[in-house]
């Protein structure tokens, strides 16, 4: 019914064309499967939520270069000034900014006795005050926030209370409740920090690290000539606050550089830029590749039709319907596509394994070659049907004309 036998013998009579098509399909499937896998993997990476109100929160840098500045009281005055500005919802000094690519990270010691003590996974370390949770816009799901009187000002070593992200709590204490646990900034027993709260989600600064979701907030207002300040303000007010904040702070003391106003959503764009670039270039490649393959296929079919004009005319004269002619070309194409697709799928898996062993790419999931073959079948159907319909219109008379 599908005329597979005559089609096969046609294919065998003139091998070079179909073989070339086969090679092209094998390579296309191998490339497209791997490329689309990498694309979807990158998109999944970029889709991860930082846990913060990314469109509302921005940060800026504050550098006090005048050694006569009393940093501690100056910082407190500055933060109060910022909180009073119109449009500002909250503000807090910080040691780092989510997704910004720079900041602090550390591991801690946990355990009940010195013998069972172990190191935790690394975590991003945010030093901030009781306003930090609200400034970042993260959700506290267990325990409580810092009390105002718990927040200390000075060096990182002073920390006594901590709020951790759910991911870090799970990695460090498993299913035990995190609230009330003690972790040590030094060796076991050294510089204890009591966990008082858990936030649902808070990412660190390095999106390519394995511990992106591990975060710790400690009850310290860092005092340093170089300070980062986080501000949460109504969407769209950044442009105006960019002017208002330096003006307000310079009124207090001019000897500071105030710059680098950046929304977290802008940090996100920058920090994922390379992934986005990779996904874009690969998508371009996939689209062009499919375009070229289908154009090439259409070209081949057109050529075949010209060569087989006589054959088609004869078949039509002998009673073949238009439908039969189209299905002849379609089935021919499907045979090549399926054979090429299967071999291409195997090559794709092989290529994926090579990429995995040489580069840090995850294993290719089989769904990608399968989807690619399906897509290719669909695409080639269109690429074949258009010229084949022309072929079906060949009049039987043509066949007899030049014999």
């Amino acid at each position: 019914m599908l005329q597979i036998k005559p089609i096969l013998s046609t294919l065998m009579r003139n091998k070079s064309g179909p073989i070339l098509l086969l090679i092209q399909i094998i390579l296309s499937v191998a490339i497209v499967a791997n490329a689309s896998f990498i694309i979807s993997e990158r998109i999944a990476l970029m889709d991860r939520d930082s846990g913060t109100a990314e469109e509302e929160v921005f940060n800026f840098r504050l550098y006090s270069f005048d050694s006569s500045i009393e940093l501690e009281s100056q910082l407190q005055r500055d933060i109060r000034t910022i909180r009073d500005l119109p449009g500002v919802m909250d503000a807090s000094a910080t040691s780092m900014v989510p997704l910004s690519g720079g900041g602090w990270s550390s591991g801690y010691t946990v355990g009940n006795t010195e013998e069972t003590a172990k190191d935790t996974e690394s975590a991003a370390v945010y030093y901030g005050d009781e306003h930090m949770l609200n400034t970042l816009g993260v959700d506290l799901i267990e325990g409580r926030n810092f009390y105002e009187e718990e927040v200390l000002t000075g060096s990182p070593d002073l920390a006594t209370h901590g709020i951790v992200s759910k991911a870090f709590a799970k990695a460090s204490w498993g299913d035990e409740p995190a609230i009330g646990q003690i972790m040590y900034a030094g060796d076991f027993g050294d510089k204890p920090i009591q966990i008082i709260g858990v936030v649902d989600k808070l990412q660190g600064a390095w999106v390519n690290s394995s511990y992106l979701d591990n975060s710790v907030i400690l009850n310290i207002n860092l005092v340093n000539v170089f300070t980062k300040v986080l501000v949460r303000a109504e969407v769209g007010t950044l442009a105006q606050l960019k002017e208002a904040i330096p003006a307000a702070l310079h009124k207090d003391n001019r000897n500071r550089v105030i710059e680098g106003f950046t929304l977290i959503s802008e940090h996100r764009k920058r920090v994922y830029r390379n992934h986005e670039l990779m996904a874009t270039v690969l998508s371009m490649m996939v689209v062009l590749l499919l375009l070229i393959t289908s154009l090439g296929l259409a070209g081949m079919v057109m050529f075949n039709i010209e060569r087989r004009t006589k054959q088609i005319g004869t078949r039509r004269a002998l009673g073949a319907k238009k439908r039969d002619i189209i299905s002849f070309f379609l089935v021919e194409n499907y045979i090549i596509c399926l054979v090429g697709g299967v071999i291409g799928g195997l090559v794709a898996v092989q290529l994926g394994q090579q990429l995995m062993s040489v580069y840090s790419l995850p294993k290719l999931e089989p769904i990608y070659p399968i989807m690619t073959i399906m897509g290719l079948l669909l695409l080639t159907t269109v690429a074949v049907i258009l010229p084949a319909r022309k072929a079906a219109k060949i009049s039987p008379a043509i066949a007899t004309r030049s014999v």
Partner: protein
Amino acid sequence: MFFYYLDLAWRSIKKTPLLSLLMVLAISIGIGITITTLNVYQLMSENPAGDRSDKLHGVQLWSQGKDAWKEFNGQVTYQDAYNLRKSDVPVRQTAMFVTGLALQTEDPDFSPLLESVRVTDSDFFEMFSVPFLYGKAWDKGVDTEAMYQVVINEDLNKQLFSGENSIGKTLYLDRKPYQIVGVTKAWSPSPLYYDVTTGAFKDSAKLFVPFSLAPIEEYQSWGNNQSWKREPINNYSQRLSSEMHWIQYWVEVQDDKQRDEYAEWLTRYVEQQQLIGRFESPEAAAKVSNVEQWLKINEVVPEDNKILVGLSVLFLLVCLVNMLGLLLAKFLKRAPEVGVRRAIGASRAQIFSQHMVEVGLIGFGGGLLGLLWAWGSLSMLSAHFDLEAALTQLDLTMWIVAPSIAIFAALIAGVYPAWRICSTNPSAHLKSQ
């Protein structure tokens, strides 16, 4: 003969415009993608040190404790840097790091700028071939007897002094006066090989100050600070005596002999430090790497780029196979015409070269169009992603590379169809005329 073939080729291309256009498009897209990825790859993997690559060496020390990092760190501790500077084996050497300082001028209305500043030794400029517009580096004596001197770059000189010779003038960094001793010409190697710790593709600093000022001025480090040891670092003197890695160290040697000599000196240094209780790991050692090795160790070319180049070469391969198929179709269609030419005396070699010229012409067209694609996609990428200009300008060599690859690839794809057509028997086609 060649021009006659060229003419024939042009006629043949005009006769089947659609098919020819398809071929040119196929090869140009393949070339466009390949050139795009190759261009970025080439610019990233370029060795900007040129012929000095074998003389300049980055120094690494395995100073960490037993169970700490399992590899050499890219930077060294301050105390090691301090000690290494005492070696008299290398011709030149420098310790360095990046800091940020508030810049003011004598003009009270000038609003302070926060600038990144490289803290380094006087040898830096000679080692990394920094060209000077005015003045020169600070004296070698300043490396031991600190003085408030600064070297600025051409851009900053334009911005602050409208490009005039500013030697001897005063700048304020964190409110301290510094005397300008040199103005460098625009200079920014890419990749910024001497400090890749915070990304290899950025501009070099606009200001340079003596390393000997670091313990006095307590410059903060704007680079990576990596500790393997839990130790309190709450003030600058603790930082200087800590095991934290945050200083880059480079030496220049005359030749391989001197490099070996220096490696030997470092080995003795490690042994000597072990005696006083540092370098506790059994793997403790020192390592020097020239610029080429340095770029490799630090994986300056990101993996993504290698994957892209690999995939785009496969892509080009698909385009070629595609073209091969189309060429085959096109040439075989012309078999009767070739039969006539053969019958009236054209040799196989002539038929073959005639068709190769045609293929070459298509390849050349594809190459040119491919360059256009590459240029377009690079500008689009750089605009959309705000990439460093250094990475997205079309390298000059590509103007030669692209058409060459295109013609070469097209010729390879054309060999089989051209051979098929010239080896067919003329009588078979003459009969059916």
